[in-house]
């Protein structure tokens, strides 16, 4: 395969695309509306929630965000530190026992029977620990107690407490916004990819193009990337803006940026492109089989169904979005992408397109 030919086609398509201002506008506007403006409108009321003490609300100011990480073990034991930054680079085989830690940053440690005050704990394991004015992220904790704890992506179990209903909404909300960033790249290319082959045919430019030394594989790959680049570009733009805006709302509340976390990064870097590719491939297949742009777009609408299934699964709680789930769906989508690509190549019939389409 000559990538030179593919790249030539991509550059031509992108140059054409730049001149189609209405399509370009919709490609940029849709992710901004769905990925930035809508989440902001939804998120803002949640940040102003005041926690109402209930029977079970006995940790004052507990705020828990994000998805708990999968179980992990850290083999640090027998170590004592005060007023310092502790990271997995400085602590080895140490356990902090019966220590009062003030103004510390504790990263990748095992904490057992400890007393934490005004600390930040990251990627650690805590047990029977009293935490006061502490931020705990990416950590696991059991039999904890304390007050004013901000927990992010942490799996914390308190002896006498559980979070309020309002605080439980936030992780679900964050997953919902994440799903929007998967839906966007899956729906965006239906506009461009549906046009890919049938558009060339309707423009009568397919015949001279097929008379050049471009192969079917190069043509299809070019058409796929011509749709992938603007779709993912617009999605990444919206993702960056969305994360920044949501963090700007979150930081005053919890004191640290929450996004993008590992789930979000894996989703946008792996799951979104594979979902986008799946959608594009489906549209390209349809585009090479129907003779009218409108028909291609109409049928192309069905392509996003696998992503909608994922969305419904997450929203209904049947699918828990964790790094492993995201990687599993990425692998699944990638496998579907490969099958679709070879299928698209196998059914691409120059003669049928040139002679049967009117």
């Amino acid at each position, binding site marked *: 395969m000559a990538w030179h030919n593919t790249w030539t086609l991509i550059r031509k398509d992108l140059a054409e695309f730049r*001149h189609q201002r209405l399509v370009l506008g919709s490609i940029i506007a849709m992710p901004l509306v769905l990925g930035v403006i809508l989440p902001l409108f939804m998120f803002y009321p949640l940040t102003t929630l005041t926690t109402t003490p209930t029977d079970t609300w006995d940790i004052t100011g507990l705020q828990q965000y994000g998805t708990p990480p999968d179980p992990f073990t850290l083999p640090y034991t027998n170590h004592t530190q005060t007023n310092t930054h502790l990271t997995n680079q400085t602590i080895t085989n140490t356990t902090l026992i019966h220590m009062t830690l003030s103004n510390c940053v504790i990263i990748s440690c095992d904490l057992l029977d400890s007393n934490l005050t005004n600390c930040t704990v990251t990627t650690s394991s805590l047990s029977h620990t009293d935490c006061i004015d502490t931020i705990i992220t990416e950590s696991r904790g059991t039999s904890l107690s304390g007050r004013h704890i901000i927990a992010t992506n942490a799996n914390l179990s308190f002896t006498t407490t559980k979070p309020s209903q309002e605080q439980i909404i936030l992780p679900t909300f964050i997953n919902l916004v994440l799903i929007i960033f998967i839906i966007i790249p899956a729906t965006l290319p239906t506009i461009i990819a549906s046009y890919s082959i049938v558009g060339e045919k309707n423009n009568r430019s*397919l*015949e001279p193009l097929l008379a050049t*030394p471009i192969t079917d594989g190069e043509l299809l790959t070019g058409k796929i990337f011509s749709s992938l680049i603007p779709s993912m570009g617009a999605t990444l733009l919206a993702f960056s803006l969305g994360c920044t805006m949501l963090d700007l709302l979150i930081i005053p509340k919890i004191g640290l940026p929450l996004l993008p976390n590992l789930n979000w990064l894996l989703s946008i870097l792996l799951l979104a492109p594979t979902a986008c590719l799946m959608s594009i491939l489906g549209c390209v297949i349809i585009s090479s089989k129907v003779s009218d742009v409108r028909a291609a777009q109409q049928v192309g609408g069905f392509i996003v169904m696998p992503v909608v299934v994922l969305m419904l699964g997450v929203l209904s709680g049947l699918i828990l979005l964790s790094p492993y789930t995201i990687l599993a769906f990425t692998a699944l989508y990638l496998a579907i992408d490969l099958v679709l690509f070879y299928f698209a190549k196998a059914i691409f019939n120059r003669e049928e397109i040139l*002679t049967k389409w009117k």
Partner: protein
Amino acid sequence: MITCSGLSKHFGNIHAIDDFTIDIPTGQVFGLLGPNGAGKTTTMRMLCCLIRPTNGTAKIDGLDITKPADAHIIRGKIGFLPEVPGLYETLGAYQNLDFYAQFYNVPKPRREQAIKQTLDDLDLWNRRDEPVGGFSKGMKQKIAIARALIHNPQYLFLDEPTASLDPQASKLVRDYILDLKTKGTTILVNTHNLTEAERICDQVALIKNTLITVGNPKTLEHTIFTRTTAVTVDHIPPDLSQTITALSGITLQKTQNTTLYLTVTNPTIDNPRIITWLKNQNVNVIYLTEEEHTLEDVYLKLLSTPHPGGSA
């Protein structure tokens, strides 16, 4: 060299072209003539490896159009102008040409030079960046022709190259074709413009779903039609129709006023004999012309005869 052997294409029950067998020597301009639906475009598409023949084959430079690996190489050697320009309307003329030139691995400096030269020749260099969607049909056709030529192909396939061009642009294209011919490019032209075919083609093939005839336009005219000399004289003697039989190989077709219409075999030899004989008969020749038949006459005569084959 292009060799077609029994080339056929059927679309279900419709036989677009059947048993098409011709040889086109390198460096010739070859015209494909025929009515709408005669299979001209189908034949051209097969030769450009866009569609596969149902039966038979063709070879271009010894490469078989039915073999995928050969077809890929053939596509690198040819330039193709389809019936409709099929340009990217939002892009400029320069971008359109540059896009196609890149598929043929034309190095950038040579590409830029070739595009500039071609657009200059077509009087479009100053409008190179304007979207071609705003151009007239003729200008689009010019750019489409330039697109087919931009990589300096060995074989050029032109489907109605001067359709929608004004007379000046048509002449420009014709001159361009003849210039390419001198450089050794083999050119196949589909056209309805018989005058144009007569002017530029070394050989023409008349097809109507199968090959009807092939040959040099002038030779075809002389083969199909008897050659007639019209002699206008000062008077016609009453017994002329009898006495003229003395001229062997020359027969009197008719007389009209003071003009004699004579069938001759070879005008170069027979015309001087006619003048001498008339002078001997005390008849003064005022002027003598040869009745010309055109390719159009050949076309209409041959197509009025029924031929086997369906319609495309």
